[in-house]
């Protein structure tokens, strides 16, 4: 595209006179934009057809040429032709499928002509790629496979580690909670708020408190007697009052003693009873 305007030439190197001359000579036309002529491309269809006829070997049998023209074999997944230009994988797959379709067609054709296609196992001949090269290819394949396996394994391990960490945290929290609960229950048990506690695979049950106390603490005989005599613990006040029961209690009533009949005959002077003071004095003087 060229920008030419003879009326508005200010920054161009061309002077007005030159432009006028050019306009007169017909080199430029009036108007703002002069379109550049499009390049023409040769496409001599007839010539091409003639040339094909001239040098074609189409009269030869197919077996001499082995050429096949076909569409790609049907693909498994739907194909998007628009994306093919920049999608290496799908493009290569298309070529592969085209070759596949040709092979399927060509091998059948050859088989119909009873022409061998398959190489026997014991037919050794020089290959396009040397054994050394194929060894390299195989080692490379193996290496790739191994590296893929390794990376897969590492990925799995990483995931597992992540999961394991989570699990461990949960376990720790659970353990701590259990410990706390246990300590709580023991505390409660000690304070006497609960009677039963599961501890180290055995159930500890609270026994009666007094029993346990008696077992642990027994006073000596003298104390026991004194306790019995004077009482231990409890309220002393009003303990000597008569109650309905004590009033009704007639177990201490002795009819022999009662009604002024005096002591019973069986009552004797207790042996070894200490004599009175005067008697003891006189006895002393006699000696």
């Amino acid at each position, binding site marked *: 595209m060229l920008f030419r305007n003879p009326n508005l030439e200010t920054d161009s190197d061309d002077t007005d006179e030159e432009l006028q001359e050019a306009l007169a000579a017909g080199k430029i036309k009036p108007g703002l934009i002069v379109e550049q002529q499009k390049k023409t*491309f040769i496409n001599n269809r007839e010539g091409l057809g003639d040339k094909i006829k001239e040098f074609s070997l189409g009269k030869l049998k197919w077996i001499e040429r082995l050429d*096949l023209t076909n569409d790609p074999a049907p693909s498994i997944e739907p194909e998007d032709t628009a994306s093919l230009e920049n999608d290496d994988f799908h493009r290569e797959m298309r070529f592969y499928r085209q070759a596949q379709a040709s092979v399927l067609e060509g091998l059948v054709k050859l088989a119909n002509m009873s022409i061998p*296609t398959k190489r026997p196992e014991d037919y050794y001949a020089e290959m396009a790629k040397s054994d050394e090269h194929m060894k390299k290819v195989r080692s*490379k394949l193996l290496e790739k496979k191994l590296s893929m396996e390794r990376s897969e394994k590492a990925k799995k391990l990483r995931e597992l580690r992540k999961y394991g960490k989570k699990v461990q945290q949960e376990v720790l929290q659970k353990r701590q909670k259990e410990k706390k609960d246990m300590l709580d229950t023991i505390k409660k048990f000690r304070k006497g708020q609960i009677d039963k506690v599961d501890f180290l695979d055995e159930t500890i049950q609270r026994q009666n408190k007094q029993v346990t106390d008696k077992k642990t603490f027994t006073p000596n005989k003298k104390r026991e007697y004194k306790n019995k005599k004077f009482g231990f613990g409890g309220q002393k006040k009003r303990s000597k009052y008569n109650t309905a029961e004590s009033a009704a209690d007639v177990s201490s009533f002795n009819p022999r003693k009662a009604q002024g009949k005096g002591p019973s005959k069986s009552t004797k002077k207790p042996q070894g009873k200490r004599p009175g003071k005067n008697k003891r004095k006189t006895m002393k003087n006699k000696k």
Partner: protein
Amino acid sequence: MAKRKRISEENTKQQTGKRQKKEIVLPPVITSDAPVHRQTKWTNKQRTLIFSSRGISFRTRHLMLDLRTLMPHSKAEPKMDRKDKLFIINEVCEMKNCNKCLYFEGKKKQDVYLWASNVPKGPSAKFLVENIHTMSELKLTGNCLRGSRPLLSFDKAFDSEPHWLLLKELFTQIFGTPNHHPKSQPFTDHVFTFSIQDNRVWFRNYQILAEDGSLAEIGPRFVLNPIRIFAGSFGGATLYQNPHYVSPNEYRRALRRSQASKYNNRVEARMSVQLRKPEMTYRMDPTDEVFQTITAESVKNSQ
């Protein structure tokens, strides 16, 4: 065993018969110690001269050697001087007794052009070779017999236009190994694939692993971008010119230019923004503000 017997019968027939016209048919599987039958019917006598100019890169050289190993009907020739005229190649082919030619032309130590020609009458075609991968790449895992005849697989698009039809015929004659060629092997274990995509011809070579159509790529792979088709061999009238072709020089120039004009574009854009920016966004009367009472609340809101 039955098949073998049949062959021996055929052989006796051939010996006793008047004309030895009957084709020798090999069974699908033969033992290695079976006697080799000489193939006599070699009718499609195509010989392809494969060589290059001086100044090709190592990759192109490897590609050329790969093609030589894959095509038993090919012949070699020392590199040609760059100053020599192209029509000399016709004479070289004649001396080498070849009627087809593949000529690699290196330019600027980076661009590779390929001439494919039918010698001496034409036609010939010139291509730009892109995306070269040689057979020695380790990711190409297939392998095939050296000298076995390939199947030639063409895209359906080759039948759509006359220039593609011509190229198809040319490729068939150049790349196809003739039947019963003395150096060829009697088995079919690989397939050359020519596909059209993006106005280019994509070449692939696959090994046939099994009859069910599983393949492995052998290599080489390359893309041929057609430039022109000539009526003669290495010259003559142009029959076809590719309108989509952009020469690598032009492409590189465009790239460089786009990089160079980055700064200029930025400066221009800034200038144009400044020019386009209006000084006043809205015509207002300054005396209007006189009647606005300023209260404590409005001040607070403005803050």
